[in-house]
């Protein structure tokens, strides 16, 4: 009995967790209604502690991030002149945004905390197969573009940017990466330097900019 109902119950919890929009009041009512009826709560949470459950919840972090962000915005905004409602200073609008963001962050995180989502549904922040190598390649690509572009010019910058980005793919080989980077460099430099006149030297040495 308990077993065949549990997925359903989980669906309920999930919906609440994701909805976030409902007020905590409704949620509280909902659980008051649910709990006394049956003791399913115990079945759903076998041995994991509530804290460990929480660590698995994406929405908890999502709310937390928004809370921190809002806090930062509001605190920094308060250092600018706030002014009055009639004559608002530069700090008024961003500070109110920050406060709103804090409230919403609390609501998102609160929804995650109060939904009793069992440990079965893994809600990891990292994807199933994290691509650290590919991610760093992608993020390094603009960085190399900046470094090589500034000190050696557009062509080396382009080559480095495409080369490192292409290395991120699982199936990349040195040869195909090299060919791709060369093709994009030739095409890109002719498009942007000759046709669109982007003011960036094709080759330079030591940072002409």
């Amino acid at each position, binding site marked *: 009995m308990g077993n065949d109902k549990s997925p*359903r119950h989980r669906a309920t919890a*999930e919906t609440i967790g994701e909805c*976030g929009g409902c007020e905590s009041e409704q949620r509280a009512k909902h659980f008051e209604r649910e709990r006394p009826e049956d003791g399913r709560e115990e079945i759903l949470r076998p041995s994991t502690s509530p804290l460990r459950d929480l660590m698995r919840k994406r929405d908890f972090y999502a709310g937390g991030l928004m809370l921190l962000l809002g806090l930062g915005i509001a605190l920094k905004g308060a250092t600018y002149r706030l002014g009055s409602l009639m004559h608002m200073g530069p700090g008024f609008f961003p500070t109110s945004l920050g406060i709103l963001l804090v409230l919403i962050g609390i609501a*998102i995180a609160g929804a995650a905390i109060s939904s009793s989502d069992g440990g079965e549904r893994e809600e990891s922040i990292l994807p199933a197969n994290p691509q650290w190598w590919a991610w760093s390649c992608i993020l390094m690509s603009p960085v190399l573009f900046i470094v090589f572009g*500034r000190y050696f010019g*557009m062509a080396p910058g382009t080559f480095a940017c495409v080369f490192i980005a292409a290395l991120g793919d699982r199936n990349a080989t040195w040869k195909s990466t090299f060919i791709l980077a060369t093709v994009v460099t030739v095409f890109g430099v002719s498009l942007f330097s000759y046709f669109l006149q982007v003011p960036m030297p094709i080759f330079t040495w030591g940072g002409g900019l």
Partner: protein
Amino acid sequence: MIGTSLTDLWNGFGVALEPHNLWWCFVGVVVGNMVGVLPGMGPLATISILLPLTFGMKPVAAILMLAGVMYGAQYGGAICSILLNLPCHPPHAVTCLDGFPMTKQGRGGVALGLTVFASFVGASWGITEMIFLSPLLVKAALQFGPAEVCSLMLLGLLAGSTLARGSPLKGVAMTLVGLFLGSVGTDLETGSERYTFGMTELDDGVELIALALGLFGIAEFMSSVNQIAPINTKYTNVGLKDLRPTKADLKKAFFPMWRGTIVGSLCALIPGTGPTIASFVAYAAEKKISKHPELFGTGLIEGVVCPEAATHSSVQGDFIPTMSLGIPGDAVMALLLGALMIQGIVPGPQLISQHPDIFWGLVASFWIGNILLVLLNVPLIGIWVKMLAIPYRFLYPSAMFFVCIGVYAANNDFFQVGEVVAIGTFGYILLRLGFHPAPILLGFVLGPRFEENFRRAMLIARGDFGVFVERPISAFFVAMCVILIGTQLYVRLRASKGASKGGAGHADASPPISPQMVQQRIPVTPAE
């Protein structure tokens, strides 16, 4: 009124048919169609990549081209979903449901042919709607004071964040982040710097292109890299003569096509409901009124043409609030509006009277562009299908270069390239935390104008918040906001009550989703 609209439209055709403008419109739709077909590239990323290229162009040509990318991508996206079962773009996710079974039955060509036709009908309707509704809206909007503009923007922002994908609360959070990012830089009224942390490069604010490319370029690449399954090209052998539908097909498709068109155009009028919602609603409605709803999902032509017509009529209809009120409905529209602003054109109700060439030229170019797309899609179907086979490992590194050079070219400064890395990282974290970054762009583009009007309204009203409900038009918009929030709460309350009914069903109803789509999961539509 109608007479002047038609004369203006005639002049618009004159503008759009100038060789220079025609050429860029053509470039736009070709590029759009191409990225629509390519899995892993979205119109948002493409428009932001192309944005820096338009700095040197005249405003008309620039906007014609960027808009062309937008609706061109809708044509291409259908190819991808019908032949590969890959909903590369969210609006086409429903098309997969019946489109791919048709492909498996060997009738993919027919589905494609009728889709092109339905798209054209839907788009034409959307354009007609734009011609006649925009001047009316403008007439009303010219009476707006700061309070009205402010509450209208609030409505637009709320609708854009709560009706779009994902959790409404998270959408609102994203809008707030966008509004905040819009306030970075020099304060317009007092000239003091905000959140620049001493970096002079930030005085002009966060660069729109860096923001768009970070969120929709780098963050998307990070979530798609090594995640895109090799494409199954088993069914992609489609030639020109496969496209020709039989008479029976045409007959079956005729009414669903029109119904989809109407649904799409209605959805376009509600702010914040873009093509994705339109296509879902259209499909659900078509299924409901059908005599044989159980056959949906097995390859019915109705299930293909109806959502496609809805998508296209809503895509064109979305331009109405964007161009006539200056309030974009979704991120793509926000980006187009941003492109106009970069060109020095102030969006808002005065746009049509001050820059009739832009507005009417754009409307006329929609017709021309759609005709071009039909011409491109029907005979050249083989080429588009071949493009499906371009592997992602060549695509994203090349795109990375365009991202870098595009952001650089915006200001000829490497600082913005660094900005794009930071925003991209932040965007990917947001994606992983279940946020959909599109409302950020909406908030970012509207933010400065929202703040300006808010401050002005408060100044006029001597700091009295009552002004928003005392003035009737403003009160109407505020009431709409309240209704919107109320409905959301009500729906959620009901959903949590009846989760046992709906909760499990949603997962089954959505089509097979490709890895990159997992990030941007199709919203659970209200129609369900």
